[in-house]
């Protein structure tokens, strides 16, 4: 690889890294066609996705995540690539991205490509270039790995739909939880345009699925930046909840606004604690898979913000102690899912095992690693936390792991 390309790659990877999504999951197998490119085809997708490496920030490297260019006409305050930023700029040619993807893929570095771009000339022109990369990979290189395209909601509808022909997943970033925040920090963007584009994609993806056609088979996702405006966690979760309901999004990614070089004066000086992002992800799971409502989750905290020191399920349970303790040998699935420390897999194992044996604490210890948090909230064949649940210092006890005692 020559030095110019290596340098471009550095700039355009740096420019893309604030997008949190990296999943390579949910793809369906691509059929092998009859054309020569297909026969010499490269790649496969795995349902769960694969993380090929982890960087020292603990994040997974699954896809080659780059921008086609970081030149941009938009001026979004939270973005390092806004037109008023003094960051170094670069631009890939379509063939360069194709080459990089294929060479990295052949060495088993990546699952595929995550391609986004700054807006150059017009949204349509930019979207066309993104589509061209994906099309070239699929048609000329017979590439069957994962492709995630960032779609530009300001582009014409037909262009966004062309992207669905080649990509496994599409995403349109909602960026901020409220339309007011967006208007203030991203003057060229428009909440209604974003919502229309998401709605359009949702309809097409659902139609194609019904008709068994290949069209963005791994659905669509989005990203929300947390901490760049004054939205509370409750605002954020309400927005996610409506996105899941209205557009059947696969995932909403939360990206704690992180300090960037060349920061804009419109931004808060201090970044939010990273823990906030973590708590939002946990709350998101509760919304999607544990039957919680936004109101219930928000009630676990104060003033619309989730507690940072304990997870949102535990926070909810501590404020709803009258619902506990729960008997693991008789409680229904819905209630077991609400016990702090029990995940959905542990709950399924409990339900299956208790048909054959009466579960004791020792059994439970083999079914979940969250027993420490769970035991105050449940009854087992040999365990009743009679007074534990009412203890005033229960929160403190569970928030911090007990200090190690040393023998002297």
């Amino acid at each position, binding site marked *: 690889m020559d030095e110019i390309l290596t340098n471009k790659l550095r700039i355009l990877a740096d420019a893309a890294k604030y997008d949190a999504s990296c999943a390579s999951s949910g793809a369906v197998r691509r059929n092998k066609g009859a054309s020569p490119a297909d026969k010499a085809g490269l790649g496969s997708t795995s349902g769960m996705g694969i993380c090929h490496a982890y*960087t020292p920030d603990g994040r997974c490297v699954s896809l080659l995540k780059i921008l086609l260019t970081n030149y941009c006409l938009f001026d979004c305050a939270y973005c390092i690539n806004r037109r008023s930023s003094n960051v170094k700029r670069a631009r890939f040619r379509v063939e360069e991205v194709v080459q990089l993807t294929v060479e990295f893929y052949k060495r088993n570095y990546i699952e595929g490509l995550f391609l986004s771009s700054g807006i150059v000339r017009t949204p349509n022109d930019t979207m066309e270039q993104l589509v061209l990369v994906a099309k070239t990979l699929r048609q000329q290189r017979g590439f069957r790995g994962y492709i995630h395209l960032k779609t530009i909601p300001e582009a014409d509808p037909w262009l966004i739909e062309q992207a669905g022909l080649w990509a496994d997943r599409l995403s349109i970033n909602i960026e901020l939880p409220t339309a007011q925040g967006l208007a203030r920090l991203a003057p060229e963007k428009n909440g209604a345009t974003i919502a229309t584009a998401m709605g359009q994609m949702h309809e097409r993806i659902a139609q194609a699925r019904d008709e068994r056609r290949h069209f963005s088979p791994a659905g669509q996702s989005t990203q929300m930046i947390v901490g760049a405006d004054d939205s509370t966690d409750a605002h954020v979760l309400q927005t996610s909840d409506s996105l899941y309901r209205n557009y059947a999004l696969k995932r909403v990614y939360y990206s704690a606004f992180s300090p960037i070089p060349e920061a804009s004066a419109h931004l808060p000086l201090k970044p939010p604690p990273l823990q906030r992002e973590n708590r939002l992800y946990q709350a998101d799971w509760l919304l999607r898979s544990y039957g919680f409502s936004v109101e219930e989750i928000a009630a676990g905290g104060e003033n619309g913000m989730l507690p940072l020191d304990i997870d949102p399920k535990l926070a909810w349970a501590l404020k709803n102690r009258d619902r506990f303790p729960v008997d693991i040998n008789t409680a229904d699935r819905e209630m077991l899912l609400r016990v702090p420390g029990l995940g959905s897999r542990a709950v399924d194992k409990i339900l299956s095992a208790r048909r054959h044996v009466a579960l004791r604490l020792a059994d439970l210890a083999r079914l979940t690693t969250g027993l420490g948090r769970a035991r105050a909230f449940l009854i087992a064949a040999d365990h009743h936390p009679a007074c534990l649940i009412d203890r005033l210092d229960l929160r403190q006890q569970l928030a911090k792991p007990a200090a190690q005692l040393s023998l002297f």
Partner: protein
Amino acid sequence: MAGWRIALKPGADLAGFRLAVRRLVAAAVPPEDVVWEIGDAPDLFGGIGNGSGVEAEESIETGEGGPIALPRAMTALIEAVICHRDPERYALLYTLIWRVLHGERALLEVSSDPLVHRLDRMRKTVARDLHKMHAFLRFRRAETPDGGEHFIAWFEPDHFILDAAAPFFVERFRALTWSILTPDGSLHWNGAELIRGPAADRQDAPDSDPVEAGWRGYYESTFNPARLNTTVMRGHMPKKYWHAMPETAAIPHLVQSAQARVKTMLETEAALPLKRQPAKAVAAMAKQAPESLDALNRIIAAAAPFVPGATRAVLGEGPMAPEIAFVGEQPGDQEDLQGRPFVGPAGQLLDRALKDAGIDRGKSYLTNAVKHFKFEQRGKRRIHQKPTTGEVTHYRWWLLKELDFVQPRLVVALGGTAALALSGRAMPITRSRGEATFGTRRGYITLHPAYMLRLPDAAAQAAAYESFVADLRRSRELASA
């Protein structure tokens, strides 16, 4: 009491274990009477005896054992646990099988049982090892004798997973030539055939690759120093894997410099833009929609088709601001060959009907809802396929834009597909035939001429034709009114 000594091959000896289990079960040998051994030269069911000098009642060599019916989940568990390096694995599995066959049929459902729990953990360990091999293995490029690419990887799995890992790499890199070398054995794929080779040495693999510098640069750039979290990184990517991954050489430096980089970011005040604001370019962004029918047609002609088959786009034709624009379903075989709408059999029928209705085709605009011929190749014939609702919708934006430019006084939908494209919802012809409104456009819905060609008898055809011509007359009146 009789003792049984079973010797299996090193590694994951599934075949040997299966055979042994069948015979042990047939001979009703309880787990506590079996000693499992692993030897380089397995004397498969040779040594029998428990040291007390008491001979087994029956030699396993001669004992017949047929297949044993086990729950499906058990087979998967056995296949995974067999790959574990723990020498106890066979004994544990046989105990499990014995219990399942002796009154605990649903044992696997009791995840809290200590044996089930232990085996499940072993299964998970093997699955994780396998997953990490798929993820962390890195190929390096070498050359084949004839100058082609040969990708070679060195990897050290914790468990006996080499064979289990093979299908993933074969599926993914089928068209390439590659080798995977491990201390337990090697795999070689030549594009057609998988060959199992002997244990290899680290030195047998190349020690560098020209692409690695670029990859390391990517890895360094995608790291965000403001989020340093080495605990999570190490949890997912333990250090034991690092030696085979070229990018990990960057980790120490990235970790050391992270804090200083963040400090600089936080202390640097917001800078004023060095370049002038590109006001003109920003204003010009809004003008991106095609500004003429020609511009739109160029876009349609260059775009990838939304339907299978489809060799080229067949665009609409006719004068601007006509009295009537006719919208059909999609181009057919002839239209696709000639690149013009309504020139095949249905088009000829339309021509006749237009003449009978007193409409000049040359003064009308003709186009299709779907711009490409969707077909399935059967031998030499290309068989027309009806476009799905989703496919029609993909083309809708183009059609509406096209009519915006053409500005007909009346739009006539020929058939259900056109009606769907124009209105955005399914409209059965039998019920919605006649005058219609498409958005703000005046419209009319009638049959597609191809429908008449498909009618079986002449009488029905004649009747349909009469009603079709009547519809066309009516639309002519509406358009000129």
